[in-house]
């Protein structure tokens, strides 16, 4: 598995542009500011607009449980709240973004 780290404080536009250039299978987002309800779905929408909705999107951070179903409805395949184990996240990517 190759992980491309793009750094902190990226806009959804930057993230999608990088994901397309790198031809990734999945995007993992992290947001601790509380803006996840705006930023996460925006990444999914931009991918759709660029005809790249085959890219799996997952997000984590300080996400209250009641936001999880809303984010999943917005197109996030995985949502990880506080306390999620690393093993769980790795398993998610292996299952949803792994190429044989």
């Amino acid at each position, binding site marked *: *598995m*190759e*992980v*491309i*780290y*793009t*750094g902190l404080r*990226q806009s959804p*536009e*930057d993230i999608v*542009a*990088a994901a*397309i*250039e*790198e*031809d990734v*299978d999945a995007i993992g987002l992290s947001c601790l500011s509380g803006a996840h309800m705006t930023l996460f779905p925006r990444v999914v929408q931009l991918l759709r607009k*660029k*005809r*790249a909705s*085959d890219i799996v999107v997952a997000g984590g951070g300080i996400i209250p449980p009641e936001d999880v179903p809303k984010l999943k409805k917005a197109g996030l395949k995985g949502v990880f709240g506080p306390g999620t184990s690393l093993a769980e996240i790795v398993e998610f990517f292996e299952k949803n973004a792994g*190429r*044989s």
Partner: protein
Amino acid sequence: MPARTSRKPARASSTAAKLVGQLRKGDKRAAAKLISMIEDDEPEAREVLRRIYRHTGKAHVIGFTGPPGAGKSTLISRLIKEFRKRGRKVGVIAVDPTSPFTGGAILGDRVRMAEASQDPDVFIRSMATRGYVGGLALATFDAVHVLEAFGSDVVMVETVGAGQSEVEIAKRAHTTVVVEMPASGDAVQILKAGILEVGDVYVVNKADLEGADAMVSNLELVIPERTKWRPPVLRATASEGVGVKEIADELEKHWEHLARSGELAARERARAETELRGALAEAALRRLAARPASEKELGRAIERIVKREVDVRAAAEELLRQA
């Protein structure tokens, strides 16, 4: 994700033709997909390379090498801006090492190049070495071709900055930039690193740190003149953008020098030779691996090597002869 194995040739050629068409129109997604096909060594990849090859050879390919932490990524991010200011279309390939233990890689060069992502005339791609010892896989050379066909005027390749990759990038690139920093040690360390023969332009980055002057004068003392080109030693503080314009000027000057002196043609030949030898080695390996009995024969050869009946090289020669 589509399966990566054995698509029908007819389908392969139409997929390749379509993607190459989109690439020529400057479609980033097509460029990205093509590089992935090459990286993963998909069956269509060769068809793609056949189709794009005639659109290559016009871009100025610049290689960057130097120890980790010298500021290669930061310098490249500043040069992207400078070349864009000069109206050039820019491609970047940043190579990071693959872990020999897990086969995975963390690619972090993009962090310092984030600003340029949304510019349609800048394309940045990270690549992992994927087990290739020299740090520059054949796939990297091919990815450079894709960015040339994408219409880039300048393609910058950032290497891992260790060992053999220096020599290889020098053979492959038109201009090789060696990035050093004051803390890299004295002239003896630099001599030992074997980088004195490869650089066309030397940059002492982080020139605001102590020891920069000594570094510059040591380098100037030991760098040999190369065919009618005296490699300049430039100071920079890339993080502040200081010295970047001067570096871009020297890079363009070297490009003009290559064209004027006829060295460009000589380097083209050298590049073709490097790539041909690499491709030959790959093709030989592939042919060997594709034979149905190869696993069995490999096993037999291993047994014989362990029993000291045959040495490794002779066994390899034998297997190759049968292929």
